[in-house]
């Protein structure tokens, strides 16, 4: 399995569109255990990404990820902006000047991204954050499990967790049974990558 720039950009486009369409749903999740802006933030950022994707033609995956990361950092804001932005910046350095990615390279990039989110957020898997999707996704990728099923499973696990990071942590155990908005948006973003693998 190799992933081309075109495939990568296509998956990204699908992920961006999925987030934009889920704006209200994500915002409603954030109203429950946050401040009601996650969909607004992510849709704003991925709208920019989506509009810029066309202009990336002819560049490599590393370039694409760097541009996407900077756009996200500059336009999403909130907690999710620096986190998702950092993930793409980590992709960018892992995949610098790569026109295609092998399975190993893809996996390594996602591992860097997870580490980047964890470092930026001072957080780890199991705290009811976006990491609860990013980390299982990356593990499934590494071990060639069914990525799509893994995401579905990860969301269920995340929903049942007590919250330890971000605004949801204000609610602690009262967040049990509610979905983390960042986990939900990460699932929407990453699911299309399942198809290209």
């Amino acid at each position, binding site marked *: 399995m190799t992933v081309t720039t075109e495939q990568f950009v296509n998956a990204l486009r699908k992920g961006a569109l999925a987030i934009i369409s889920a704006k209200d749903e994500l*915002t409603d999740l954030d109203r429950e255990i946050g401040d*009601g802006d996650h969909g607004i933030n992510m849709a704003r950022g991925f709208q920019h990404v989506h509009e810029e994707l066309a202009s990336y033609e002819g560049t490599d995956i590393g370039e694409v990820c760097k541009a996407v990361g900077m756009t996200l950092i500059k336009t999403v804001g909130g*907690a999710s*902006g*620096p986190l998702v932005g950092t993930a793409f910046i980590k992709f960018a350095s892992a995949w610098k000047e790569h026109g295609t990615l092998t399975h190993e390279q893809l996996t390594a990039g996602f591992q860097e991204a997870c580490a980047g989110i964890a470092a930026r*957020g001072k957080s780890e898997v199991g705290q009811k954050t976006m990491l609860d999707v990013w980390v299982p996704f990356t593990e499934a990728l590494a071990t060639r499990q069914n990525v799509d099923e893994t995401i579905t499973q990860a969301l269920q696990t995340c929903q049942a967790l007590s919250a330890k990071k971000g*605004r949801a942590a204000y609610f602690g155990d009262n967040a049990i049974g509610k979905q983390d908005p960042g986990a939900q948006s990460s699932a929407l973003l990453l699911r299309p990558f399942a198809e290209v693998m």
Partner: protein
Amino acid sequence: MEKLMQQAKHYVRDMVLGIVSAHPDLYETRDGLPLILRKGGAIQGKVGLVSGGGSGHEPAHAGYVGDGMLDAAVCGEVFTSPTPDLILEGIKAAHGGAGVLLIVKNYAGDVMNFEMAKELAELEGIEVETVIVNDDIALPATSERRGVAGTVLVHKIAGAAAAAGQPLQEVKRVAEKVIANTRSIGMAVAPCYMPESGKPGFDLSPHEMEIGIGIHGEKGLERKSLAPVQEITAQLLQKLRQEMQGNDVIVLVNGMGGTPLSELYITYHYVAEALQKDGVSIKRSLTGNYMTALEMHGFSITLCQVDDELITYFDAPVHTVGFR
């Protein structure tokens, strides 16, 4: 709740334009960015103070830009942390050669975005320090505690230290002293509504109140039947006093944006009465809208334990729209 605005997506842009045109003698902005800068720019040799965060807390933070307080306020989207590139512009504008102190409220988003901005500013050779305000005792775990109305006291007192010509490390020490000495807790009887979604932060039935609300439409931690204000303030003060030793305090009764000022003064009356009974000496007090959450109807109480140093800085002259 209907919004008085042109378009939700221009809410912050239009607000910033309004702030700057309403106070041409006090403010300037730059390149159409959602930044409020003290007119005339950075003061050479003075430590620059930068704060900010999501919008919707007006007069915070723009209203505290001015002589004796902040040099720049960075305005994110409503209740959304501003991005690092914007914060960097604020840092650059506030830097007068003596470094910059960032006063950040303890939210994951603010902490990360200001941290990234600090890294970028350091790359450009600007010395930057950060203090994290976490005065809201609604949450037991101090690591998760939010920065709320007490932030205004940090602006005021650290601002006075900077205006007095103190160096960066000293201004930071003073700011951290205020933070260590300040505790707040809030309540609401009606939520706020997000401009973009038009939805309330939480749904309250009539005759109910939320205790321990945040300033972003976050639900409170406890929902109760509404009580007379003397009972509410007694309960909140008890929580605050459990965390404080000293008996000399600054009291801030802060309105959440949609609270009539008459209710805030009524609240202050019962707060002051209870503190005096408790042997606490109110050195200074503030009552009004200082750190709001759009049109939320409620209040928070902040106590800041003070000594001569903090009172002297608190009393130092200040020239801003939001604080006098």
